[in-house]
């Protein structure tokens, strides 16, 4: 809920900066990485409550998930893990060379990408 309030504050600042009335806001597009421990549905629920309280009555929230991406520190192989980390069979070790010193190259995103405003 705190993060949702943050997002709404940031959106409000962007609208004010551009002199756009908040009633014209129709959509906010957000990316959440798999390594951020944010449940998209819970975030959306919080955003809907916070946006209505802030007078953004027409806004819907579109949340895109970004996959966990790792680059092997041994052979440089890059892997995209759609399910994120976790699960019985999960291992950060490289499936090709077996080295276990990966660098996380994606999955920690948490950004407001764009907003849609009605004419």
């Amino acid at each position, binding site marked *: *809920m*705190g*993060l949702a309030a*943050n*997002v709404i504050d*940031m959106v409000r600042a*962007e609208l004010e900066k*551009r002199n756009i009335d908040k009633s014209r806001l*129709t959509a906010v597009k*957000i990316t959440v990485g798999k*390594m*951020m*421990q*944010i449940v998209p549905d819970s975030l959306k629920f919080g955003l809907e409550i916070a946006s209505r309280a802030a007078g953004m009555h027409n806004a819907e929230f579109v949340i895109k998930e970004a996959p966990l991406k790792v680059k092997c520190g041994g052979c440089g192989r890059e892997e995209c893990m759609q399910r*994120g*980390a*976790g*699960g*019985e069979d*999960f*291992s*950060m*070790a490289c499936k090709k060379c077996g080295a*276990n*010193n990966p660098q*996380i190259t994606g999955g920690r995103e*948490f*950004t*407001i*990408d*764009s*907003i*849609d*405003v*009605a*004419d």
Partner: protein
Amino acid sequence: MAEIEIVKDIMEENDEIAREVNGILNSKNIYCINIISSPGAGKTTLLEKTLARLKGRTECAVIEGDISTPIDRDRLLPHCDSVYQINTDTFGGDCHLSAFMIKDALKEFDLDKIKLLIIENVGNLICPADFEIGEHSKVLLYSLTEGEDKPLKYPVSFNVADAIVVTKMDLLPHLEVDMAKITENIAKVNARAKVIFVSSKSGEGLNEWIDYLTTAKK
């Protein structure tokens, strides 16, 4: 209708304050660790033993994070003069500490007299991993009673840790815990972390833990 591109990092406000906190600590030559664990893993008990051992050796300060009560501050005060309690219920009951809370808490200490700042985060294996608070390293505590599967169930918290301290080792004879499995599961999500096995009760592993703390700060 128009689509306006923004691309703003939602964590940026927190991260910026975290960098500021880190800068203040560096300017005072203070090493800072952020301790993360589930509730009841033994963070405060380990700190009681740690502070007692470091007394007269390393000037320490502690920031305690809890949703409510000064219980942990009161437990640590006999071992350390500089203990400050943050109760997140004054900020809406957050389940983690944020950088701005640490920045405010630093004002409570004489930073010229501190060499090691230990922050005990709110007991929670999820959110604290997402919030930088200006620390130099993250230490994750994981007690034997939590079961072998926790590194796999909470991979992000385990992955971001620089050191993983397995606590309550004195309970090993009483539990059906597969130690090899614990080591294997930690390595699956984080092979670079230093892993230390301790018992705050018996003293097992405490020398290694203190060595880690005192050498990491160099």
